[in-house]
């Protein structure tokens, strides 16, 4: 049970910083609350008494959304559901809708925020590898000013970030990838409400004929303390002709990706299958020529 004496809902950033200053050492910042409330239960943190909860989800800056051809800026309080509702956003971040549909369930992702997913820094976070594939920059603000930091620097370990005392994550600045095909592969114990054992974000851009990989973005999570961008595989694929053999070759690259505490062998098998399957799905959505991918390959990994 989460017990507080006061629940503050600031309407502006300035009000939020004032509340954080006023209640210094006695508050916790919340947004969607979909992880905080289950956290404060027996078996995890138990009954938790926090004098003041500061809910930043109503602050306008944290709810802004700018979708351009080159860049996407998302406020930290953007609910995960937006990636399914907002078609323009889905086109600019094509793996994200596929991620969102696997994220918790229809109800929780209406409330859960992108910023919360990042600040939680769970090794199994679903949205974080997608953001990493977009080279996301984390926008931070405090009463003293603003600073930016690459997402991969911001998350330092399981549950650990570089968020400073008195600081808020206000948003994310991401590369936009319109015209890319996207996919998101995830495995857990069931369909909904499941924590990823492995998850993989994939984006692929093909040439006009749908035969050559012009660009690709890959990032993986659930297999190590922090999400990891798969640049070696991206470099290997970029500029090459799309064939089943190439994808299998990429999946077999000798990278020591799996550094999880448990089930390493299983995860290695999953990662290999996910790479091939995710690349096939993304390439198809990017307009792959029917000649490029053999039916056998699709049958094996579809």
């Amino acid at each position, binding site marked *: *049970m*989460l*017990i*507080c*004496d*006061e*629940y503050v*809902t600031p309407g502006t950033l300035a009000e939020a910083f004032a509340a954080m200053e006023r209640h210094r050492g006695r508050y916790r910042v*919340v947004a*969607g*609350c*979909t992880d905080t*409330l*289950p956290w404060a*239960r*027996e*078996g995890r943190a138990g*009954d938790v008494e926090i004098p003041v*909860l500061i*809910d930043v*989800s109503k602050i306008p800056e944290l709810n802004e959304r700018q979708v351009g051809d080159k860049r996407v800026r998302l406020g930290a309080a953007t609910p995960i559901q937006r990636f*399914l509702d907002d078609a323009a956003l889905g086109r600019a971040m094509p793996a994200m*809708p*596929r991620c969102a*549909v*696997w994220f*918790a*369930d*229809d*109800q*929780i992702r*209406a*409330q859960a925020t992108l910023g919360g997913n990042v600040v939680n820094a769970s090794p199994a976070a679903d949205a974080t590898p997608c953001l990493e594939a977009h080279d996301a920059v984390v926008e931070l603000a405090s009463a003293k000013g603003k600073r930016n930091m690459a997402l991969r620097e911001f998350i330092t370990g399981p549950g650990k970030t570089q968020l400073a005392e008195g600081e808020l994550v206000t948003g994310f600045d991401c590369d936009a990838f319109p015209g890319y095909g996207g996919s998101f592969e995830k495995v857990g114990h*069931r*369909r*909904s*409400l499941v924590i990823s054992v492995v998850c993989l974000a994939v984006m692929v851009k093909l040439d006009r004929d749908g035969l050559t990989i012009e660009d690709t973005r890959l990032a993986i999570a659930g297999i190590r303390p922090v999400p990891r961008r798969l640049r070696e595989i991206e470099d290997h694929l970029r500029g090459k002709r799309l064939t089943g053999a190439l994808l299998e070759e990429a999946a077999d690259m000798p990278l020591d990706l799996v550094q999880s505490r448990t089930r390493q062998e299983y995860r290695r098998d999953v990662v290999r299958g996910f790479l091939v399957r995710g690349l096939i799905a993304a390439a*198809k*959505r990017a*307009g792959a020529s029917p000649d490029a991918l053999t039916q056998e390959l699709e049958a094996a990994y579809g």
Partner: protein
Amino acid sequence: MVDIRLNATINGRKVSRDAKPHLRLLDFLRDDLNLTGNKEGCGAGECGTCSVFVDGVLMKSCLMPVAKAQGATVDTIESLAKSGELSVLQKAFHKAGASQCGYCIPGMVMAATAALRANPFADREEIKERLGGNICRCTGYQKIFDAVELARDVQNGRLPSTALLETDTADGDVIGKSVRRIDAPSKVSGRLKYAGDMIMPGMLHVQVLRSPHAHARIVSIDTSAALAIAGVESVITSADVPGKDGFGVFVHDQPIMARDKVRYVGEAVAAVAAEDALTAKRAVAAIKVVYEPLAPVFDPDEAMREGAAIVHDYAPDNITKHIPIRVGDVEAGFAESDLVIEENYSTQAIEHAYLEPEAGLAYIDHDDVVTVVSPSQNITHHRHMLARIIAKPISKVRFIMSPVGGGFGGKEDMIYQGMLALLAMKTMRPVRLVYTREESIISTAKRHPSRTTLRMGVTRDGRIKALAMRMVCDGGAYGLSTEGVMRKAAILAAGPYNIPNVRIDTFGIYTNNTPSGAFRSFGALQTQFATESHLDIIAERLGLDPFEIRRINAMRDGATTHTKQKLGSVSLMRALDAAEQASNWEAGAPTVRGPTRGDLGHDDVRPSVTLGARFAADDKQEAAE
């Protein structure tokens, strides 16, 4: 505490009132506004019994601080049938038989409403996906999906609204007809009151202190600090029990709160009744218990060995119950067998996971009758046990069975009703206890974990000549239903097969694990898992079709079981035929199957689970482009 002045529109009416800042929207709706249609099944966003619309978007109200509803429009299950007329979806749930215990159904109806609002033409896969945040334990979901599809088709005019009505049974003959459940309207509308929904004037709230130790002596319990807290009315321990303490379905070995020692993690040690649940919680935290840890025993095989920790003094060998069955001469049977196979099998503990966590309400009525309202699966037995525990004549003890939001055997044990009765007697006020999901899991019975060694002898043509089985079950810290479970496990161990020589021993063993108790099949699963798996292995060794080996040994009409019961009729052959047909069985020994499987891919075989049904249309479009 700084209260929140909440202004919102709830079920179409303006609400303006103060709320405690730590409340979740669910607490505010259920406790402050008495809108109990939506339930709390888990409190952690996993089950969806609490799903409500907030500004038209379905949300899990157990994950939402009430402050988030400031200025919002909130619609609960009560909003769907406001004038008493059920919505199309509610009628469809009624018609399709989509409710059993009903506890998940308000949330399920809300999720279905949201799904059809999002896509009025959603196909079954998309419906499944959109209902993914809601869990049902009873129905197996198929009737729920049937109901949503029925509602969709009626809403879209593909079916007439009469499709929602009762099938004509004007001739009065309902046998073999699909008739609507009479209790469904109360469930689909959220109007049915489960124990946790009930309130009484002056009611106190109960919280329980539970043991952190698996095995420890209780040196002392100091309740003075808890009693000193304002709002705390009573704190009870086993010392307050006036009669002969002890309950259990067979052996009355479990005190209503731990007496002298604790035997498992989660065992009740003390209970508090206070003006509100938060005060009761704080009082529980203020109770000081000094424990002296004892060596625990967690493995039933170890518990049977000499020198193991003793869980109950009355059973120094830790055996709760041993059921032996002897028929014929097993060794002679093995001697005349062509093939003798021995294997080990094990099964694990399983939680019942009914959607309704335990809850109960107790009060002393005007005639001094101690009354307990709870979803008990065994009220008559509970009544007799409680009368002895509280030293009252049976005429002064009453049990009322509230709607059971799923039981599966898990609500046969009088695990909390004794504490409620005692607190009502102490305070002379109504008292209510509502378990959290975690409390339900930690403190109530599980299915018996088992280890089985099975030896079976057969002739070359597949006839079973002898069966020897030894099963050891972890009964946990208290007896509960262990004796009956061991008995049924033994009685059904040899399956519905003619076996001339049988030796069966089932043992229920005390350990310091969570108690095991009744759970669907009541012991049959554990032994039958071994026997049926064994038959498959033998069929493979003999080159027989697994159905065939069962037919060869099947009991027929007039057979006598290995516990000497004469069976008038035996439906096994029909069951085998039906199973063979329904499973698209490929005849032959298990070794003859080639690289492909002919049993999959049929219309009646469900495809594997995927997500993204809502993208299917987009993908088709992309493929076409």
